[in-house]
């Protein structure tokens, strides 16, 4: 069935592309209705090439592109949209701010396309990304994090129909990432824009996306809901090699003595270290490696670990060197155990267990 015979869906994205370049070939077909779609994979897997297809930079290879409900390229109808007419807000991996323009000049560059909505788009971008104080600055006077924000703002101020973000955090060190990620999430949550997001970081993929396509060597190897896909058996070797861990979203409920209490939306409370005080109600995103989740068959007595959660085993899946035990602790968690541990605790779906997590195993991502 040809893609345009499918029932018209408001935001459907459909891409079919074959691009060969040097020794590398991208050969993909993917379809999603997600507003926030992540393209995940190691470097060299073809993510950026796929973006170039979406941007219209590989028109010669005659791809089929329907992006968030809009047809951009369709060889069967001889439809091919020029780069400048695609209405996309592209943030390349390096910010590529125009060095001869100041911040305001960069932000205004895409203004003509936004037309009558331009002033609004510019004001929104400045507000959401807090760019006001930077407007008169020269580009070479910006820090790395500021540059990322300006690049994102420049794309937003052009009044795009969709955002293409290529590893927006990859060029930043960990501390900066934690500062920029909240801005990305604000853009996601405050502006009703379709977003395509490239990353090789499983934390980001789980945190940002509603949907993920996993690319490996130029092909889509899996796609679907990010948590399910990244922890699936087929993708696990790849996602673990890139640092897969549990990702938890929560809000601060209290903070004292260098530790904070946070609560997940489902009401699970956790203790986390807080070297700097956190305000009550502040959202935090936490990373927790599967190997740092201990399982106990009975409730432990007095123990230094600050987090003990009653849980139930959902699934036990073999994984290299042992097993991954998926549990429901009021939030979904995955624990990495040896075979011996799985046997000793007689772990099987349905079995009640306790998750034991040191506060210091919870790393703040943003």
């Amino acid at each position: 069935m040809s893609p345009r015979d499918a029932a018209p869906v408001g935001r459907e994205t459909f891409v079919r592309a074959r691009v060969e370049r040097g020794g590398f070939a991208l050969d993909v077909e993917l379809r999603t209705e997600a507003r926030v779609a992540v393209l995940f994979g190691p470097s060299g897997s073809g993510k950026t090439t796929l973006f170039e297809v979406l941007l219209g930079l590989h028109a010669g290879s005659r791809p089929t592109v329907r992006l968030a409900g809009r047809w951009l390229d369709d060889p069967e109808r001889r439809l091919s949209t020029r780069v400048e007419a695609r209405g996309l807000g592209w943030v390349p991996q390096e910010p590529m701010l125009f060095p001869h323009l100041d911040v305001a000049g960069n932000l205004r560059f895409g203004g003509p396309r936004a037309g009558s909505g331009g002033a609004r788009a510019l004001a929104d971008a400045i507000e959401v990304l807090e760019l006001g104080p930077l407007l008169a600055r020269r580009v070479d006077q910006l820090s790395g994090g500021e540059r990322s924000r300006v690049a994102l703002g420049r794309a937003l101020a052009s009044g795009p129909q969709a955002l293409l973000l290529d590893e927006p955090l990859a060029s930043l060190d960990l501390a900066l990432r934690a500062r920029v990620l909240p801005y990305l999430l604000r853009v996601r949550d405050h502006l009703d824009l379709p977003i395509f997001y490239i990353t090789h970081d499983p934390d980001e993929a789980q945190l940002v996306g509603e949907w993920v396509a996993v690319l490996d060597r130029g092909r889509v190897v899996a796609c679907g809901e990010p948590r399910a896909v990244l922890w699936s058996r087929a993708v696990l070797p790849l996602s673990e090699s890139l640092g897969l861990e549990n990702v938890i979203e929560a809000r601060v409920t209290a903070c004292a003595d260098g530790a904070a209490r946070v609560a997940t939306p489902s009401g699970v409370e956790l203790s986390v270290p807080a070297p700097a005080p956190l305000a009550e109600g502040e959202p935090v995103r936490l990373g927790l490696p599967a190997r740092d989740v201990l399982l106990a068959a009975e409730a432990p007595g007095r123990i230094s670990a600050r987090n003990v959660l009653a849980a139930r085993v959902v699934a036990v899946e073999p994984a290299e060197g042992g097993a991954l035990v998926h549990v429901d602790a009021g939030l979904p968690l995955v624990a990495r155990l040896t075979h011996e541990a799985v046997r000793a605790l007689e772990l099987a779906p349905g079995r009640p267990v306790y998750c034991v997590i040191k506060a210091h195993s919870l790393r703040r991502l943003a």
Partner: protein
Amino acid sequence: MNEGALAGMLALTSRVAAVATLLALPPAVALGYVLARHRFRGRALVQALVALPMVLPPVAVGLGLLWLFGRRGPLGALLEALGIEVIFTWYAAVLAAALVGFPLFARACEQAFAAVDARYERVARSLGASPIRAFTRITLPLAGRGILYGALLAFARGLGEFGATAIVAGIIPGRTETLALGIWSRIQMGDDAGARALCAASFALALGAMLVAELWLRREPPATAHAARP
């Protein structure tokens, strides 16, 4: 030699070099851009052809121009029909200077464009800019310094042009006698003092042009300036 003649020669020389530079500007920018951005078959041949006016004997370049623009030449006949005479006028000096300065100019433009990351253009186009707007608003300003540097090189080269100019423009005092031609004719006439004076004037003019080129334009290439900070 009186001061009026020297001033006239200086003015003519500067005017010839300046007009020649302006004449060479559009093709040098266009060719430089194409060579910097596109890989095509025959690119090396184009580059070699572009370099020719610089490496050929200037006299040969002049003879070529004489043939092209002479009364019976293909372009000369056309221009004569329009009532324009080129040979033995200052126009011919302009043509000669433009041609010999062109290789330097085009090469400088090519390097200037090559130094501008092509991704800037792609970003500009993704933001809705047509190829022309992306070129005029992004690429050209970023390459501007390098292009101006090429223009000054071409201008400086034009100031000293002799061989080709002597053939096509002749040495007509007050009309086509530039500084370089003036020096030559002074020597022919045995006027060593006059030749020395003109040499000094040439020296000052050329030094001035090259100083501007080196000091002002080569300071800092803006296209890479942004990489200075992490």
